[in-house]
């Protein structure tokens, strides 16, 4: 059996050369790579032996795996995913129990220093018993597998930044991959869940160029996370004109006006949703009528309510306002009484001056 990815796509899945090149050009454009590189991407994908991948899932909801594998079957993205040598993925692999763990050991030994580690989910640092696989705590598994990996891809906001488990009050002491592993290149593909083509794009980039794509300061590939949702949003003209939906079913919402007042976090979110879109390019949340919740940014769960507009404080201030008025009132009256006393005192202390006094001085 041929082992290169291109051969598998062609022979086993009947993907035509034309479709394959089309896919390569989509990858290239989504990563903002010059079209002149398309043949190179195609060649690398076709010739490179299957990349060994170990996928570790920690505190996660499997939404990320769902997004990547079941988005719309069977796309070329999912084929790529399936046809990398996914040597260990406890949701997708057939083997279970000891056999599964043995497969992981084998893959690690066979590809020492060369395999790619993909992680979804955050790592609990509170009690190692919070999350274990085959009796091994998440942090131990991560350290062990990371030590032999060439690079790590943290898929989803949980692995990239801590995500939902890390949200206040963070009962398990959840942390991101980059808080534990500091000596390996880490690519954060954030999003809850991330866009499928972003992960295949990053894998293709690694295979083609053998180096990490350019990353932003949060470790995310710039080609996907360099764009601001608000800057690319098709509702932006309404924002500029001051036309806002006030409610999810009012006339403005039906006319597709801007969702800023309904809590859209597009202005503070960097992701490719507005351009790549979801479900094979069908639409994205804002197009479906819901504001962006900012899922690709760290701590987005704790960044104020999803439905509170960016311009308003994250929490109601009615009580605080009342208390401040009461405190100000009490202090003000106290100050007023003191001032009045001071004035009365000053009046009482005044020395009277008579004409005689003045005459004497003059």
């Amino acid at each position, binding site marked *: 059996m041929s082992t290169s990815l291109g051969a598998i796509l062609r022979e086993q899945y009947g993907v035509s050369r034309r479709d394959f090149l089309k896919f390569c050009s989509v990858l290239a454009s989504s990563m903002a790579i010059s079209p002149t590189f398309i043949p190179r991407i195609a060649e690398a994908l076709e010739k490179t032996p299957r990349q060994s991948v170990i996928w570790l899932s920690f505190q996660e909801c499997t939404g990320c795996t769902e997004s990547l594998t079941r988005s719309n079957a069977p796309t070329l993205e999912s084929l790529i995913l399936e046809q990398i040598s996914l040597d260990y993925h406890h949701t997708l692999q057939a083997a279970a129990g000891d056999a599964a763990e043995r497969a992981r050991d084998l893959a690690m030994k066979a590809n020492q220093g060369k395999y790619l580690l993909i992680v979804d989910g955050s790592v609990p640092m509170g009690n190692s018993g919070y999350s274990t696989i085959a009796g091994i705590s998440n942090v131990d598994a991560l350290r062990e597998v990371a030590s032999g990996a060439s690079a790590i891809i943290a898929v989803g906001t949980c692995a990239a930044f801590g995500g939902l488990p890390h949200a206040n009050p963070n009962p398990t002491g959840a942390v991101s991959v980059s808080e534990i592993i500091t000596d390996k290149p880490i690519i954060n593909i954030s999003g809850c869940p991330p866009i499928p083509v972003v992960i295949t794009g990053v894998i293709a980039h690694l295979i083609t160029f053998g180096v990490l794509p350019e990353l932003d300061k*949060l470790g995310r590939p710039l080609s996907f996370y360099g764009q*601001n949702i*608000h*800057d690319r949003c098709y509702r932006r003209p309404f*924002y*500029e*004109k*001051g036309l*806002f939906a006030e409610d999810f079913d009012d006339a403005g919402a039906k006319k597709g006006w801007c969702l*800023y*007042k309904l809590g859209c976090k597009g*202005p*503070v979110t*960097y992701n490719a949703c507005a351009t790549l879109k979801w479900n094979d390019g069908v639409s994205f949340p804002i197009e479906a009528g819901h504001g962006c919740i*900012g899922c690709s*940014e*760290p*701590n*987005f769960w*704790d*960044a*104020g309510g999803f439905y509170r*507009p*960016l*311009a*308003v*404080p*994250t*929490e109601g*201030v009615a009580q*605080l*306002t009342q*208390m*401040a*008025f009461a*405190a*100000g*009132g009490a*202090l*003000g*009256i106290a*100050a*007023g*009484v003191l*001032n*009045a006393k001071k*004035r009365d005192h000053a009046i009482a202390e005044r020395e009277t001056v008579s004409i005689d006094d003045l005459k004497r001085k003059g």
Partner: protein
Amino acid sequence: MNEVAFLAWVRGIGFQIALGIFIVGMVVRWLEIFLLGKKHDYSAPKGSAVQGAIHTIFSRSIPEKSTWQRSRVQIVTGYVFHVGLLLIILFLTPHITLFREFLGFGWAGLPNSVVDLIAVITMFALLVALVRRLQDPVLRFISTFQDYLVWTVTFLPLLTGYMAYHHLGFSYPTILGLHILSVEILLVLFPFTKLMHAITLFIARGFNGATAGHKGVQA
């Protein structure tokens, strides 16, 4: 602290601290002024104190002829940036959203491009005012540290707001956070500096007008 956490802080705890200090400060200053009271005037009234007060509150907004002839630039820039600030604060949609949060009701905003233009004009007027203050020997002599402080904390929200709108310099969460922070600094300083004139101006005019009105003379 990453930028999202920073933005969450200025929208959360930071805002609460600033608002708390602002309200307490304003109420204290206001009560202090009113509790000082006004000496009762036993003379027979020759006119209405209330009418005099109302008249003066408005009439003082119109520059006197001789003052106008002496310092046109100052008066015009002063008007431009005060009116500009008011328009921006009250008619930018995100600001109205904030007011609605407090008041329970909102009003129609101006299109962003219009507010954007007003912001540029307002910043320009403020800069002219600063240059004048620095160039005029008398003005410079009577200027204190507080004058420059107050100018800065007024200018910064405009500048950061403008930068946030145009995505200049920083990432949007950072610059939006800085904008909110600059307003919080303004709120904290407001009751304890000359910025308080926004309120005391009316009290002072009212008192003067009432005294004059009682005496039946023009203030």
